């Protein structure tokens, strides 16, 4: 069946920004012509009137936690994929901290088989650096890769041993696997549960200093420089990390970085009176850090916006703040929060699409493009539609968002993967 998307502003970063019609046929982009040239009358199939909308290469979230296998009450691969589709994402990278950990090919294959039964969003598993995320011995990277893993990380349980991290980077580089680092010196973080500073002092909570992130970012940058291996730094939250990454890039070290919407939107003050929906790791920081993260997005120090979508149920969240699990969900609010950056002049619309689509694809060695002949992975969104976040309506099984009740602008209307519509809110 053919699909015609008519009159959208088509933004394919570096290639196109114009009002165009897109014809999809056989799962690929069959034709793109200036709006009005193609005639729907001689075409069999579905036509979407998309004037006022933006069509972009499918958005990719390179940092999500789907809880399958092991904690399906929080999120399954199917529910996570539906949440991704509703948020405009055509592809996600799943972190390995499932139960069992994705540190071997059978788990990777299980994830992919579950993904094949889901709504159609592409799932790219990320394997563990160390077996069971214990930081003691390396996972079999080549096996993981051959099963379909696109990168390795010990996200959440960062590799403490500098030697092990060095070897992991060297070894992964030989296989063309990306190493993603959750930068945290766990000793320095010292069991803290929010940002160290005035708010933590007032609330009587133990703090995590910026330096807990920065020292590890600097270590891993040094290891990237030493080994020449590519390094991707996850969920950047501090001004000092942004500066370190910018400096590393200037010196030609092959480092890339991502941040999450909550780090460019919220400060530590969101913790309010012990709101566990504002608890994540790294923690929400200060206004100065938020500004630095936004600057980093603007000047390219930070390449990617990824959600760190971390579903938890009330069992983990409706408890004492220091005992609550870290993490918030983000797939269904990420695009609208990203669009706030466009509204406030931090990013151009093209810049936002780079951060949410083409940059993560490039970093992972995947393609994301609206070229004729490319797979029809397309996100169609309204940049103007105003809506109110209601977590109860989420496709995700979990509800742990700090943005519940927020009024946001911009929403995905149609998400297409390989020509198949996986989410449709077109009226």
């Amino acid at each position, binding site marked *: 069946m053919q699909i015609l998307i008519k009159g959208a502003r088509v933004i394919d970063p570096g290639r196109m920004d114009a009002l165009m019609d897109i014809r999809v046929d056989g799962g690929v982009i069959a034709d793109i012509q200036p709006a009005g040239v193609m005639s729907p009358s001689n075409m069999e199939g579905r036509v979407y009137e998309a004037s006022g909308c933006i069509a972009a290469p499918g958005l990719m979230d390179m940092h999500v936690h789907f809880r399958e296998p092991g904690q399906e009450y929080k999120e399954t691969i199917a529910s996570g994929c539906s949440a991704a589709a509703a948020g405009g994402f055509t592809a996600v990278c799943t972190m390995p901290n499932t139960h069992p950990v994705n540190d071997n090919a059978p788990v990777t294959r299980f994830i992919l088989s579950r993904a094949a039964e889901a709504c159609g969003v592409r799932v790219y598993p990320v394997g563990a650096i160390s077996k069971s995320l214990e930081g003691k011995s390396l996972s079999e990277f080549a096996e993981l890769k051959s099963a379909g893993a696109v990168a390795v990380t010990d996200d959440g349980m960062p590799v403490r041993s500098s030697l092990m991290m060095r070897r992991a980077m060297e070894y992964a580089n030989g296989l063309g696997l990306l190493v993603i680092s959750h930068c945290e010196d766990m000793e320095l973080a010292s069991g803290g549960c929010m940002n160290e500073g005035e708010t933590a002092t007032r609330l009587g909570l133990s703090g995590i200093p910026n330096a807990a992130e920065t020292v590890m970012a600097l270590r891993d940058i040094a290891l990237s420089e030493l080994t020449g291996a590519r390094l991707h730094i996850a969920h950047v939250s501090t001004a000092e990390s942004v500066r370190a990454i910018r400096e590393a890039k200037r010196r030609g070290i092959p480092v890339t970085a991502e941040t999450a919407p909550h780090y460019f939107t919220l400060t530590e003050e969101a913790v309010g009176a012990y709101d566990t929906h504002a608890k994540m790791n790294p923690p929400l920081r200060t206004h100065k850090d938020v500004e630095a993260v936004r600057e980093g997005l603007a000047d390219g120090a930070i390449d990617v916006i990824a959600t760190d979508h971390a579903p938890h149920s009330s069992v983990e969240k*409706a408890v004492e703040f220091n005992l609550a699990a870290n993490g918030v969900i983000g797939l269904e609010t990420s695009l609208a929060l990203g669009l706030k950056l466009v509204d406030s002049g931090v990013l151009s619309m093209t810049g936002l699409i780079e951060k949410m689509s083409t940059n993560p694809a490039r970093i992972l060695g995947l393609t994301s493009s609206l070229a004729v002949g490319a797979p029809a992975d397309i996100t169609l969104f309204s940049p103007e539609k105003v809506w109110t976040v209601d977590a109860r309506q989420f496709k995700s099984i979990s509800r742990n968002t700090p943005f519940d009740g927020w009024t946001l602008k911009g929403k995905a209307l149609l998400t297409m993967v390989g020509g198949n519509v996986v989410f449709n809110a077109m009226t």
Partner: protein
Amino acid sequence: MPTLMKKDILDMTSLSVEEISLILDTAERMKEISERPVKKVPTLRGKTVVLFFYEPSTRTRTSFDIAAKRLSADSISLSGSASSVVKGETLLDTARNLEAMKPDIIVLRHSSSGAPYILAKSLRASVINAGDGMHAHPTQSLLDLLTVREHKGTLEGLRVAIIGDIMHSRVARSNCVGFTKMGASVTVCAPPTLIPKGMASSYGVSVTHHMPEAVANADVIMMLRIQKERQTGFFFPTEREYSRLYGLNRDVLEYAKSDVLVMHPGPINRGLEISPDVADGPHSIILDQVTSGVAVRMAILYLVTGGA
């Protein structure tokens, strides 16, 4: 007579100067009851007070228990180990179950900062914070304010030095709020490792690491218990060095005003943060604090149940 328009007593920050004064005035009147041969009035007859202590405590729990009984309330003590906690029930579930038995007041001691807020938000019963993590201990602060006011006649303009493990102390936090709110000026003193970030700006207090400076011209010196475990977190090298730099002895006391009051929330480490001769000496009002504790808690139980 004004009344306390609050369901819960969670911290000092949410109490106004007028409300603090009301509690202190009421407590002053309550003191007389404890001096009677029959130490009981019928005021809270038929009221149920649950003393829910997730963290061990002797002084505070006993004080609340005696306060409740002197007002004829029925008080029930639950401790962390005896309650459902060990069975893995969440705080909220345990609290909801308690609520279903219709208590009027739940007094909560908990090792997690903010735990009383969870209860206060979801329960109809009044919640009184008897100490939560490192965050707040409002009844301790109120009893300290009462004790000082009784000895000095006023709180306005006093110089208060709080010395010891500021970082981990809910007593220090609540007293920084309480004393500054009532017009006193507060200086906190500890090694830099035991002063949390942003202490001065978030609490409006002065910070020093030099004990003689903290004590200079003080009207009140409040010593905090130092836990020996802090050595393992590298907060200070040895008890010996801590005691030499931050222990209160007669020599350091010389820097203070001649009528200085020496306080300690207890339990004290004799010879570590305070020398025995100072703890037992003429400036010490440590046991007066304990007496005030019962009166302040009687006042709070009375006021939150709508007394006037």
